[in-house]
């Protein structure tokens, strides 16, 4: 092999984006609040949000699990994390972000675990927070043996919702486990 050389390569990215869509990361501080920003009003640290699940069976083994971030209409949330762990007879097939937030920087899953994080978008005019009572994420799960029990457990240590740096998820009221029959 000839002596080396080189270096180089690869590269990527993203560029055309710069022409179609301006960067959303101005280096200057964000200016005065827009009407949207006023949504970020004080919520007095109340834990008013909770996750709720709706399960629908697609085939004998496949099910769709829609998870909603519920709360009072008009209340804002800066970000939310949801960590789910599959039981032995269940595997996670796919995970899709929902519409609660404009940004889902983390949609990570293996057959045994899913971690989803949605966050408020930050634009030149301010933050666009998440909205309550909208779909947070959808999962497709497979019951390996439909005759045996299976479940998805919420890992509470990896689950939360926050506003102005404070927790706003009511863990008592929030989803803890989804059992597939």
């Amino acid at each position, binding site marked *: 092999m000839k002596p080396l050389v080189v270096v180089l390569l690869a*590269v*990527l990215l993203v560029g055309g984006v710069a022409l179609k869509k301006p960067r959303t990361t101005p*280096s200057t*501080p964000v200016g005065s609040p827009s009407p949207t920003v006023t949504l970020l009003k004080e919520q007095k640290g109340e834990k008013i949000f909770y996750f709720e699940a709706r399960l629908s069976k697609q085939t004998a083994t496949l099910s769709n699990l829609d998870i909603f971030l519920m709360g009072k209409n008009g209340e804002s949330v800066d*970000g939310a*994390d949801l960590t789910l762990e599959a039981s032995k007879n269940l595997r996670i097939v796919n995970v899709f972000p929902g519409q609660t937030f404009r940004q889902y920087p*983390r949609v990570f899953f293996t057959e045994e675990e899913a971690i989803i994080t949605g966050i408020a978008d930050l634009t030149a005019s301010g933050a666009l927070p998440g909205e309550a009572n909208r779909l947070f994420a959808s999962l497709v799960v497979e019951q390996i043996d439909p005759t045996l029990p299976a479940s998805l457990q919420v890992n509470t240590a990896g689950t939360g919702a926050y506003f102005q740096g404070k927790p706003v998820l009511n863990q008592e009221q929030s989803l803890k486990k989804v059992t597939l029959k």
Partner: protein
Amino acid sequence: MKRLFWGLIFLSSLGFFVYLGSQYVFRTRASGLNLALKLKLQGNYRNDTKIQFRIDLYSESLKIATFNGAQLSYSENKVFEGIVMLNQELDLSKPYAIFIKPEKYLGQLFCSPTEVGESCTTGKFNFISGLNSLDISNQMFYAGDLAPQDGKVDSADISKILAKIGKTDAITDINQDGIVNSIDYTLTQRTLSLNKADDEITLVSPTILPSPTSAPKVTTLPSPTSAPTATTAPQSVRGRCEGIITGEVRVKYLGITECRVVEEEDYRCVNSASECTKAACIRYTKAEIEETLARCDHGLASFDEANSPLNCEVKFVPEANCTDPVQDTSCDDTSEKCN
């Protein structure tokens, strides 16, 4: 003129870093026990920036010392340098592993400059009295674990930043430019997208050796000379690990994925043929992609590792005086798009 592809990356040296050997002995320059440390942080910094961090020392799998409040000063190209006083009596006959946790960043565990995280199972740092030096600037520390630090980056950290946007706040102003803004938000967002957390402590206790009775017996043959000779294991031979890296690299930015073809040759110096493996080549290539993305895209793009098939064909060539190639720090996008 705007670049069509501004955010690019370069696998510059393709992640071929120098292996310093199986044992890392620091150089002595002065009396006392100090550590000259050099590390790299995600983000861009002003020249007068200083960062604080914590160091935990591990002997085998036990944490034997913690040093809080150590400080480093910005040097250049995201690198911080400084000298840490290790005010603790250490058994200098033992090797150590080092966990480094900068304020506002995720921590990493080092067994050697190149054995980090999951691959760090046995500490290999041997301290000696005097000034020891450690350069780990080949590894990027990711931002976003804000006080009170919990070893992970999640929406709580993003929320803390959003609460202080446009304000002066030491806790959430990650790059210390005097104001909490979209840069701090974006740095944290990128770490989130990589699903990173503090390195788990994966150190193991030493393996218990089999009893002498169970060990195979070795018969030593007499040498032709009168003096007895010892049979030794083959010496490790330093050399070049030459690699041909092929595949595709995908990067996500604002929901859009860009793909580039990779077809390159490069090399790194290794201390033995056993270090020249396909897995190590791929691992370092991926690490370099992430590092280059962070450097050239300011944390806005993320490496889609799961959808970036890479292959390395490696070949070991003995070369006692091997020197590593100079890293290319360019951010130009010269590679081909995927079909």
